[in-house]
């Protein structure tokens, strides 16, 4: 039985969640001298949750789960001859840790006889907001990739596909299967391509062997919606069964050295994700706009009977939509996996956000999901400036509710005629 790809729990994103930093002082020639033995304590509302000490390289890492904390330096552990630059600020409060995030904290120190330097990467509001905005755009692009299929499937068949998240997970887990040393051990780039093909095939199988026969039978849309929910559960738990419950990572592109762009630090992975998503989305947009198949898709999404009587092979168009939607979702899954690690229910997590994005943009349209996704991604990330990170998805619900009250057809959708 294909079973049992129990992927080994790789040293992964789980270990990267927490506080980190490197403590050093500058010596006379401008070089850095790491300081060992300085102790930090992390607390939340209920007390101390972790502590750590800087090692020989001056580096410390304190793992904590996602949440809001304060971190303080144990002043007594600072060696002789070194003091805090801001002695009345030994503690930083209200710092948020997101899943997969190693948060850098800075405690400027002064050594005897050393000129103080201005540190980069401070935690000012503008910097945080900028970092969150970048994360939001990355996230939004990922959501966009995953949800185009969702929107077009609704447009062409009327089905609200609650199992769409599982196509995302299939892509991410598929790539993991191909990539991890316990699996096939292929480089992630090739593994990603294979995974996208796998997800596209899954989409096609969905349509050919489940939805098309149901449509032929005359099954109503609401019944199909409920069936898609059943499929979602089935799919998700089969994936859990096969892959286990831990968050995993790909073998390549895992831990990277950050570099600075202006006030924010980024890793090369971020840029790759942005670049690949943008290129893909542009290609998809062009395909939908220019190619014959793309036009046929839009025609069927607009008015199926009319498209059919114009000679368009509706079934083939629908199959194309599912294959393309599946492939895109799978690709989004791989990128999501690169960004935040891979888990059996990652697609389901994303599903709600996808719905918010697609509703905002306009269910059934091709461009709607793109704008909706970017807005959703930005909004929920920036919302962590005021709310704890574990509740940031609430923002997506708020968007959903507001849109439904104000403009239910979304930004680009059309109001339906009554009567």
């Amino acid at each position: 039985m294909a079973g049992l790809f129990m992927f080994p729990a790789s040293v992964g994103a789980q270990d990267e969640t927490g506080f980190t930093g490197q403590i050093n002082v500058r010596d006379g020639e401008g070089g850095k001298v790491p300081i060992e033995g300085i102790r930090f304590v992390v607390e939340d509302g209920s007390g101390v949750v972790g502590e750590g000490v800087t090692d020989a390289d001056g580096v410390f890492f304190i793992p904590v789960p996602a949440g809001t904390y304060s971190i303080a330096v144990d002043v007594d552990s600072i060696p002789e001859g070194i003091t805090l630059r801001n002695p009345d600020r030994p503690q930083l409060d209200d710092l948020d840790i997101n899943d997969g995030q190693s948060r850098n904290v800075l405690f400027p120190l002064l050594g005897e006889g050393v000129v103080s330097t201005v540190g980069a990467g401070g935690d000012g509001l503008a910097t945080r907001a900028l970092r969150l905005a970048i994360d939001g755009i990355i996230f939004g692009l990922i959501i966009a990739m995953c949800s185009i299929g969702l929107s077009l499937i609704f447009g062409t068949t009327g089905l609200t596909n609650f199992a769409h998240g599982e196509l995302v997970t299939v892509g991410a887990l598929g790539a993991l299967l191909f990539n991890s040393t316990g699996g096939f051990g292929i480089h992630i780039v090739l593994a990603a391509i294979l995974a996208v093909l796998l997800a596209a095939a899954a989409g096609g199988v969905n349509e050919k062997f489940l939805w098309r026969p149901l449509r032929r039978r005359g099954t109503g849309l609401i019944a199909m919606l409920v069936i898609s929910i059943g499929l979602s559960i089935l799919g998700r738990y089969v994936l859990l069964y096969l892959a286990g419950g831990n968050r995993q990572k790909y073998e390549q592109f895992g831990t990277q050295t950050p570099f600075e762009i202006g006030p924010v630090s980024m890793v090369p992975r971020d840029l790759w994700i942005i670049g690949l998503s943008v290129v893909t989305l542009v290609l998809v947009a062009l395909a939908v706009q220019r190619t014959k198949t793309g036009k046929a898709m839009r025609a069927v999404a607009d008015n199926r009977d009319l498209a059919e009587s114009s000679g368009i092979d509706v079934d083939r168009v629908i199959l194309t939509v599912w294959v393309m939607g599946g492939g895109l979702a799978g690709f989004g899954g791989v990128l999501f996996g690169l960004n935040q690690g891979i888990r059996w229910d990652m697609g389901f997590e994303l599903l709600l956000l996808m719905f918010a994005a697609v509703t905002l943009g306009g269910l059934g349209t091709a461009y709607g999901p793109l704008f909706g996704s970017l807005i959703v991604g930005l909004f929920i990330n920036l919302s962590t400036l005021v709310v704890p990170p574990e509740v940031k998805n609430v923002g997506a619900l708020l968007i959903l509710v507001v849109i439904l009250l104000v403009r239910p057809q979304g930004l680009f959708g059309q109001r339906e005629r009554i009567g």
Partner: protein
Amino acid sequence: MSEQELNPVFEGVSPTAGSAKPDAILTADKVTRRFGGLTAVNVDHLEIQRGVITGLIGPNGAGKTTFFNLMTGFDTPNEGTWNFDGIDVGKLPAHVVARKGMVRTFQLTKALSRLSVIDNMKLGAMQQTGESFFKAFVKGLWSAEEKAIEQRADELLERFKLSHMREEFAGTLSGGQRKLLEMARALMTDPKLIMLDEPMAGVNPALTQSLLGHVKSLRDEGRTVVFVEHDMDVVRDISDWVVVMAEGSVIAEGSHASIGANQAVIDAYLGTSHDQALDFNEEDGEDA
């Protein structure tokens, strides 16, 4: 069929579009409904006379059903106001308009298939005590009313010759029987104005006479009837007055005879430019 003599109430009413009526039950002013670039309804002024049968005719796409939807609150216009029985019903939702006495039926019959015929009928009665959530629990509060409603329903079923189908699911009725049911059910609401959307559509000719008789009896009871119809024989048979719509506007009003002779009406049905050469624009690879 003989032509009907002009109902005396219309003596002196000018057979022009938008003419004033001696006792209008429904008056509409400057009602417009646009869908994107298309103007579906653009009625400048229309008055419906109380207590008579008014036929609303016009080619397909003329806006008749949309006009019905607007008047009864099933759609919202871009502009316009209209009064029913002296009340401004422009902003009211559909169910409130129905409660005020203006009731409509649908082109595609909406017999509630999964309810029995008698339940369909009992549904029609308005302001039932038992329909309120808390009172529903206490049967004693509404059982007497329910009996009275049931009696009225049975009388109407008798009148419409549907009594034998009383306990059957409405879904088992034939097309014509469903039309009868919908009409009978609408009568349960005790409407002042009843708007029938193509009541004869899909009904076999044998049943048509019976339906026509029912429609006439509505008027004889003192109700006002407006109906949309395509069958000219039907229109000629029972209309006291005819209103013609084309491309969203009212283009003519009058007795059936005067309508038949109206050039604007003929043009609307046949098309004005049928003697000009047809002209196609080249499609130059534009996106759909």
